[in-house]
């Protein structure tokens, strides 16, 4: 009984707040509507609570349509909108300075939860979350320790391990490549998992690694991505995995143009060059987005850290009609076995970010 009373009370308050901002200049009207709101609130069920959820998203520099990481979040949010009918707002930043502004703007306008995409938003989220302690923030790819921030991180090394294994099995030359976006520990974690997977499948496998750059621009430079890929192919690589956001568009295209295989990342990119993309390392940011918004809608949203690995279905590899012919039965059984072993803990994939080292 007590909890129901609390919920109703909270609802009335939040509705009152909402109306007040609308009719700030009409005090009489405001009072009438307030009392009406209170009456209505009493009659409403918990489902009506949904109306107070106003999700918003701030994308990272790669942009909403990077066909990869940010786009995964966007697709998840779209799906949530379709299933729940709750509209969301989003913003694409053009430079680093806009992160804080965008977050603050959304918080000021009463949006909650606000989803910040990407590790580079951490400091901005930390700051703005402190200013708006009642607003819910969710950050993907980084941990922010605050009472109103939910941090979602993935075990990319586990998904990368699987595609590394597939790459080494598909490679004829025994050389596989990796093209990263910005040179940061997170991307090194992808690379490290990939190397481990490749060596697991073929201890003699050689892995060539390149990073596109050291600034945010490295997420959106397909020309450079293509040049790096060509340079790796010249050195004998025949499967290239990218973890480079929009830059990866160039990586996959260069691999496809040269008749080699690419491996997509974050979203399912198999369809970008059907038959030329071996597989994609799925990072289910879409699920994470839906989960966060849904939890906020249901009132079960909690601050804290959630780590999503293979076991939690947070990462995986993509198999669909576009790459069916590329994955042999032998490859599939090997990767399934490895996935089961990782989930059960029999194989432990080293996490680069735990000690900033990658076992050779």
């Amino acid at each position, binding site marked *: 009984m007590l909890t129901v009373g609390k919920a109703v009370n909270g609802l009335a308050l939040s509705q009152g707040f909402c109306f007040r901002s609308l009719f700030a200049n009409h005090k009489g009207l405001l009072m009438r509507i307030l009392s009406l709101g209170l009456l209505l609130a009493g009659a409403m069920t918990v489902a009506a609570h949904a109306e107070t959820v106003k999700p918003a998203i701030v994308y990272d520099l790669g*942009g*909403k*349509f*990077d066909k990869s990481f940010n786009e995964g979040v966007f697709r998840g949010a779209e799906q949530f909108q379709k299933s729940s009918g709750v509209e969301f707002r989003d913003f*694409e930043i053009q430079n680093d300075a806009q992160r804080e502004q965008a977050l603050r703007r959304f918080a000021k306008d009463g949006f909650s939860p606000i989803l910040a995409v990407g590790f580079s938003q951490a400091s901005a989220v930390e700051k703005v979350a402190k200013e708006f302690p009642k607003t819910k923030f969710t950050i993907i790819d980084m941990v922010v320790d605050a009472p109103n921030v939910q941090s979602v991180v993935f075990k990319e090394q586990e998904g990368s391990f699987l595609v590394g294994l597939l790459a080494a099995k598909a490679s004829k030359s025994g050389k596989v490549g990796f093209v990263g976006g910005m*040179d940061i520990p997170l991307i090194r974690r992808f690379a490290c998992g990939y190397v481990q997977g490749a060596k697991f499948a073929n201890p003699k496998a050689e892995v*060539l*690694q*390149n*990073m596109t*750059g*050291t600034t945010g*621009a490295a997420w*959106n*430079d*397909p*020309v*450079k991505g*293509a*040049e*790096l890929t*060509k*340079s790796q192919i*010249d050195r004998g690589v025949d499967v290239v995995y990218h973890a480079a956001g*929009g830059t990866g*568009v*160039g990586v996959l*295209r260069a691999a496809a143009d040269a008749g080699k295989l690419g491996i997509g990342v974050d979203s399912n990119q198999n369809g*970008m060059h059907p038959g030329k993309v071996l597989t994609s390392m799925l990072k289910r940011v879409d699920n994470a987005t839906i989960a966060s918004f849904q939890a906020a809608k249901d009132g079960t949203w909690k601050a804290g850290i959630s780590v999503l690995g293979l076991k939690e279905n947070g990462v995986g590899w993509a198999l669909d009609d576009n790459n069916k012919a590329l994955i042999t039965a032998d490859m599939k059984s090997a990767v399934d076995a490895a996935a089961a072993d990782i989930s059960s803990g029999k194989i432990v994939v080293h996490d680069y970010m735990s000690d900033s080292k990658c076992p050779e």
Partner: protein
Amino acid sequence: MEIYATLIAITESGLRLSVPLIFACLAGLWSERSGVVDIGLEGKMLAAAFAAAAAASATNSAVIGLAAGIIASVGFALIHGFAAISQRGNQIVSGVAINMLAAGLTALVGNAWYAQGGRTPPLEGDARFQPLTWPGAEIIDQIPVIGPLYAHILSGHSALAYCALIATILSGFVLARTRFGLRLRAVGENPAAVDTAGVSVTKLRYAAVIIAGVLCGFGGAYLSLGQAAGFLTNMTAGKGFIALAALIFAKWRAWPAFWTCLLFGLLDAVAIRLQGVVVPGIGQIPVQAIQALPYLMTVVLLAGFIGKAIPPKASGLPYVKER
């Protein structure tokens, strides 16, 4: 042999990267030789890249894309010309305005048309200038030493890359050896003298600005149809400004401009290639150091090695006829 193959690969990559620089640099050369300073190379290339990608994706034809790119670029060039020549406005201001206009407009229109964050849809097949493979390239590639030179340096580039070479030859010849070129250079040095001789300064300058627009159109189309497969917001990424630096370095002459741009492209390719490579005796070079290399070299070359670079005398000055 390994080293030789690496050298070939770097040169090949350098050639690919230098093509847009060559076009932009030649465009700057034409414009500045006639006395019109062109800061707007970047913006014109960007507009051309967008128009080319949009037209190519609509018609699935790279040639129509190129034509659209040239039209867009010439359009911007005429705006610059109108402001700088007819209205005698400040040429720097007009150029900067063109850069800003192009950067904003392409992203805005792109987003409105395709709703992909300012991108155009990816282009496939005939909508792009594919690398041309010369006859017998694959067989000749087997011949040691000379084979790869033919197969990777001469053959295997997009048609627009060969256009860059042709443009250099033509620019060099026309500017140095024809009456039109002589008059054009004179307009950049001493427009009053040209006017006294009964030749229209305005017409010559407009001609130069339009030629610059056409060249920028080629450069932009190469970016979106040759090098990448579609337009991306701000994909020129400062190439127009690097081309301006190359122009100074080349002392406003066509062939030196060509070689300078090749050098800049090559440095870029080296930076890409040296990443993650273990250099004997030094070990693995940090990515950051490699990426700073082209800029460092540019500064060193510009600061120390070129001697005195004297721009055309009337460059940047609007011509006012005395009455």
